[in-house]
């Protein structure tokens, strides 16, 4: 035998709505969903895209320091986000604005972080949506720890729908190479924790194509650690919703972790600081535009569900309002006071920090009236 003879089969890509907007059935993942529910998903997708686009615009106008757009990944995020129950906990990276939306985190709060008025500033336990984590992969271990707590709290496998809790953690194709992500897999598998690992494979880690990280599909990693992995069409909100639901259900019922690889595409730059023309061909983007996550839902709603134009006009108007609101609110965000940097370093300020604070206050006061 040669050790290297085996060729793994090409992976299935779970899809429930084609790029053309045609509903298809998947034998393993039936999804019962009404057209009203699909309309609601459409609304999420459209508003997230609008909010995200507005943020990019605000950055261009100098209102934000940076923006990491989720353009193209709305379905992957909304599908997962809407599969969560309120007691579930989500651990995002820095790009899950669509999930934040589903968790009712005010977009303006997110903007505050990219504007630089805070380093995050929301309470993870308020909406069960953790702070954005910029260090790649670190949050996957936080999710594991949180899930250990869930298990210890007896909130797994009770059968009570309001009680059983799952943890959903996000990471990118690039981040999958970080040690932390792999340690998270190991811990989750060894203790059979209620965590769903949700990898948005958007094909790129800044300028590096996913082939730099792996020569086999990423979902396959899971099987090596002893839990299921599955690849889904990350531009198909229905597939994302359906598979996330199953995985979260299985987590809540005590069956342990799952890895979902949402196969999608970063349609924009990595962040507003990035220039993707340096490293990728525009044809690639063109191909993916045909798989746009929102267009297919729109096509479905028009063609198969007979939804009238008024609905879309309504969403359009709502988007416009949202954009105006966040633009204004973003501009109104106040800069933190210089002395605020000393607050919340510790639960109670230490003597030495209090001294630094007061020295600095005196120093600042010395300029008052001095026409600085």
């Amino acid at each position, binding site marked *: 035998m040669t050790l290297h003879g085996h060729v793994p089969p090409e992976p299935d890509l779970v899809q429930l709505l084609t790029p053309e907007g045609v509903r298809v059935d998947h034998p393993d993942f039936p999804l019962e969903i009404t057209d009203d529910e699909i309309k609601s998903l459409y609304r999420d997708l459209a508003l997230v895209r609008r909010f995200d686009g507005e943020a990019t615009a605000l950055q261009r106008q100098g209102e934000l320091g940076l923006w990491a757009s989720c353009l193209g990944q709305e379905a992957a995020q909304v599908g997962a986000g809407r599969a969560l129950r309120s007691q579930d906990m989500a651990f995002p990276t820095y790009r899950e604005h669509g999930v934040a939306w589903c968790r009712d985190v005010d977009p303006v709060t997110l903007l505050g972080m990219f504007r630089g008025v805070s380093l995050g500033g929301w309470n993870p336990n308020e909406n069960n949506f953790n702070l954005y984590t910029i260090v790649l992969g670190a949050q996957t271990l936080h999710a594991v720890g949180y899930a*250990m*707590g869930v298990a*210890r709290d007896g909130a797994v496998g009770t059968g009570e729908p309001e009680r059983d809790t799952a943890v959903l953690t996000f990471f990118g194709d690039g981040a999958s190479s970080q040690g932390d992500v792999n340690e998270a897999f190991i811990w989750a598998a060894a203790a059979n924790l209620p965590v769903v690992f949700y990898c948005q494979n958007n094909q790129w880690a800044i300028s590096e194509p996913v082939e730099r990280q792996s020569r086999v599909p990423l979902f396959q990693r899971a099987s090596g650690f002893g839990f299921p992995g599955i690849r889904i069409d990350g531009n198909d909100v229905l597939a994302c919703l359906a598979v996330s639901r199953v995985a979260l259900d299985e987590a809540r019922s005590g069956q342990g972790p799952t890895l979902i690889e949402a196969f999608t595409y970063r349609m924009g730059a990595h962040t507003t600081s990035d220039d993707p023309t340096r490293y990728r061909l525009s044809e690639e983007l063109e191909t993916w535009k045909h798989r746009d996550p929102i267009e297919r839902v729109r096509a479905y709603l028009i063609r198969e569900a007979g939804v009238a134009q008024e609905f879309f006009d309504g969403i359009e108007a709502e988007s416009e309002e949202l954009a105006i609101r966040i633009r204004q609110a973003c501009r109104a965000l106040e800069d933190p006071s210089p002395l605020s940097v000393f607050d919340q370093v510790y639960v109670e300020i230490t003597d030495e920090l209090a001294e630094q604070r007061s020295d600095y206050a005196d120093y600042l006061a010395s300029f008052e009236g001095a026409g600085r």
Partner: protein
Amino acid sequence: MASTLTMAAALNAALRERLEADDKVLIMGMDVGKLGGVFRITDGLQKDFGEDRVIDAPLGESGIIGSAVGLAIRGYRPVCEIQFDGFVYPAFDQIVSQVAKIHNRSLGQVRMPITIRIPYGGGIGAVEHHSESPEAYFAHTAGLKVVTCSNPADAFSMLRQSIASDDPVVFFEPKRRYWGKGEVDVTGLLADAPQLHRARVVRSGADATLVAYGPMVATALQAAKAATEDGRDLEVIDLRSLSPIDTGTVVSSVQKTGRLVVVHEASVTLGMGAEIAARVQERAFYSLEAPVLRVGGFDTPYPASRVEEEWLPDVDRILDAVDRTFSF
């Protein structure tokens, strides 16, 4: 009610007391369960509190600290054991970028009541990575608190206070003093213990001040004793808290004695002695009759054990520095 305990037993008692007092307290680390840890500090705890409160972790330090962060977000109060000083670095990212910063990142809305216990320091004849003193890395990191005990009574009260602290605490345990004995009031109230972040004058003296912490306090006290033969009366301060530093206690002492020697095992450059020297020369400038001197490990990797006794500060090297401060 005071009993005579080793430092190891005192730490064990503190953990036990916290596990009993607060069911959100969890212990996690490598071999902390059946084995009771390689130093037996968690001896018997898994048996009494169960495998889900005293958790044998998979073998990744980043995993231990990273999952402690998640547990803290869920409302738990994890106490993590790092097996030896030299093995904390795989967790450095989680400690520096997450544990230390999340409370701040959330504008105070999430707390990180995590205690990271690290047996540290040398003098036990061990192989590489088992004798290091990495405390300065953590004391330089805003958002962390860093403490170390030098005797069983402090071991008991300071570990309880650290676990009860709502801020993350890196708790350094001087492993070569684990088996030293002392009186410990195991029934003492947490509230009655001396403040966690206060230094303590462990010997008062008039002629010069020695500042030490952890394993070096005993050595400093021996040096002070030996110095009496030269007719010198040394004050010895046990720093106890490395972040924040109780600068006031050190400065008061120097204002009295005019001379200061700081002693630690860690390499001198950018060790705790650097910070103390910098603060003291600033705040007691006119009191200093000689520069602040530092006695520490040399600026080399911790050496092979057959030469560690020469590398580590000892009574003679401390006395030599004291002599030098008197020659100014």
